[in-house]
């Protein structure tokens, strides 16, 4: 008897395999995942604090332990130790003390108040993308802003999705009065002029990462409800739902075990574009000055400063380039996801 070796693949698994064959999207996906993963270790990679310091037979980890005054390591500077100079001094003295700096030894926050930093420094070997109007290193700010942007977009999209799926799904599944009432609420809610709300709120209270996400979420979940309502409404009338109900499955289980997995197409195909929206939203707000509080590295704020000093090309090009590359990678992913979910085999992306 011939042995059956073929493994049955779920629809999602098939789509994942198809996604993998769409090179542009797949490689963008891998690259973005790696970059975002690395960006959580930025303090170890791009920082002005030393990773390890050996001073007088004691080992210190300034990256983790934080502030050490200059006098602590015998350096004659006001405030915190400047580890770059400390390293140079120790090397010149050929002393027993040593320290290891991160690969790129500049922090996004250190400005001209730190000895040795200059304003408007053009890109060079030390400052890869130059310095800005307050002497902060552009490259390091860019990298930290990447982490914040993507995190912001991810958290925002996830929250929107949770709310949108819950409310939209219940609307479609329960129907009747619940649907009617929530539709009217959504119509009223969606007519709120969102940007003005944010501008008003951030002029009253100082915005923070989570406050911004909160404000954006209370308006943004609406988009998803339309899609989910339609999906649940359609799936609900299929016989497998009747079958699940007739065997006594609870409404909640029917919604999330049976209907939701069959309504994933808009959720997944929409997600990358929702990320693009999230990143752009944060950039826009920061550019207008209503976003994250000032010292936070952000592409929008860098763009704003760059445009005020447009003759310093690196200050404009860096945030624009970073945004461009990030957004286009996300769009590539989105395009490939859409393609992978398309039942037609023909593809122009391969």
């Amino acid at each position, binding site marked *: 008897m011939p042995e059956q070796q073929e493994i*049955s693949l*779920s629809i999602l698994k098939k789509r994942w395999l198809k996604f993998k064959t769409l090179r542009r999207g797949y490689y963008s996906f891998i690259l973005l995942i790696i970059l975002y993963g690395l960006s959580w270790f930025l303090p170890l990679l791009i920082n002005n604090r030393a990773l390890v310091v050996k001073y007088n037979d004691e080992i210190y980890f300034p990256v983790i332990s934080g502030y050490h005054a200059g006098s602590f390591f015998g350096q004659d500077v006001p405030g915190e130790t400047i580890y770059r100079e400390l390293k140079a001094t120790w090397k010149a003295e050929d002393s027993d003390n040593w320290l290891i700096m991160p690969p790129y030894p500049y922090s996004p926050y250190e400005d001209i108040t730190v000895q040795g930093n200059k304003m408007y420094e053009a890109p060079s070997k030390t400052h890869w993308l130059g310095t800005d109007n307050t002497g902060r290193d552009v490259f390091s700010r860019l990298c930290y802003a990447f982490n914040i942007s993507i995190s912001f977009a991810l958290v925002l999209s996830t929250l929107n999705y949770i709310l949108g799926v819950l409310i939209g799904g219940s609307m479609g599944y329960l129907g009747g009065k619940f649907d009617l009432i929530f539709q009217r609420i959504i119509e009223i809610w969606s007519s709120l002029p969102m940007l003005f709300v944010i501008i008003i709120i951030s002029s009253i209270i100082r915005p923070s990462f989570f406050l911004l996400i909160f404000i954006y979420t209370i308006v943004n979940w609406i988009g998803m409800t339309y899609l989910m309502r339609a999906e649940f409404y359609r799936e609900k*009338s299929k016989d497998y739902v*009747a*079958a699940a109900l*007739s*065997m*006594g499955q609870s*409404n909640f289980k029917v919604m999330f075990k049976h209907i939701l997995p*069959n309504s994933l197409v808009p959720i997944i195909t929409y997600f990358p574009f929702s990320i693009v929206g999230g990143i752009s939203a944060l950039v826009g707000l920061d550019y207008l000055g209503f976003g994250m509080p000032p010292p936070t590295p952000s592409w929008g704020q860098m763009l704003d400063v760059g445009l005020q000093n447009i003759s310093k090309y690196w200050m404009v090009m860096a945030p624009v380039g970073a945004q461009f590359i990030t957004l286009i990678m996300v769009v590539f992913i989105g395009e490939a996801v859409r393609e992978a979910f398309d039942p037609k085999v023909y593809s122009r992306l391969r």
Partner: protein
Amino acid sequence: MSKNTLVDVKNLSVHFPVHGGVFSKRVATVKAVDGISFSIDKKQIVGMVGESGCGKTTVGRAMINILKYISPEVEVGGSIEYHFDDGIVDFAKLKASEMRKYRSRVQMIFQDPYASLNPRMTVAQIISEPLQLHTKMNAKEQRDRVGWLLDKVGLQPEQARRFPHEFSGGQRQRIGIARALATNPDLIICDEPVSALDVSIQAQVINLMMDIQDEFDVSYLFIAHDLSVVEHISDKIAVMYLGDMAEYGDAQDVYHHPRHPYSKALLSAVPLPDPSRKNRKRIVLKGDVPTPLNKPSGCAFRTRCPIAQPSCAESKPEFKEHAKDHFVACPIVEKKALNL
């Protein structure tokens, strides 16, 4: 009503309100099922036939009490009394919370084998779902039971890890049957289980269903629009027209000696592979089925009935026992029979 009765449906009506206008006022009522009565004995197969849109499926869904989930505003009247071993339960009056423990007793096989299996779940997951809900089996027992059920319905237990889209229509319907059997129900409502299948596969599935009925001692309510299929499988036949019961009785009796003019017309349309009966009379009904939104007064069938009389418009015909266990809703036929 005999001791052997499993379910006794009395005067069942299912009405769907229709709303319209600015304030969603109730403007009309779709009387999908309008007062029907019949009963199913233990280990009995009752076939239910009728044109599409006559309420057959609605009866089936009312009998497993899921109409309220599908359209919350539905109004169900009458009673659907189940005589289980541990007491009598009226599904028409049961609340959702009380309903759950009886769910395992009545199961359903659906018409469309492509829509009735969740495409995201493997066969094992689909069949073991009722087991998870109604039994305390552990994972291994469930796996064994799934394999055993698959074997019973003519599939290989190894196929349990596959997804529904890897099966043909007939195989999917077998999976549906296995799912319905999982909890050893007393009654299975078969909602046109073979209409979506090829004729050759139809026969296989029907034979399988009959074998299973023998083995599991289960009752069927077999809904179909193909009379020859119903005659082959059923002990009793119920003929429905536009939400009303036209005729109900012993299968052979109804099939060979139909009394209601609608049943006669329906039966005369069944193709017979018998050249000697080539010249039998075909009764062709005129017109379409009226909409259940606006049913004709009196007898719903009078607009198309070949023997209709003015009195038919006056009152709804009584559902009377014309012969032993043979109920017909037509006073004209009764009069004729008496005059003979």
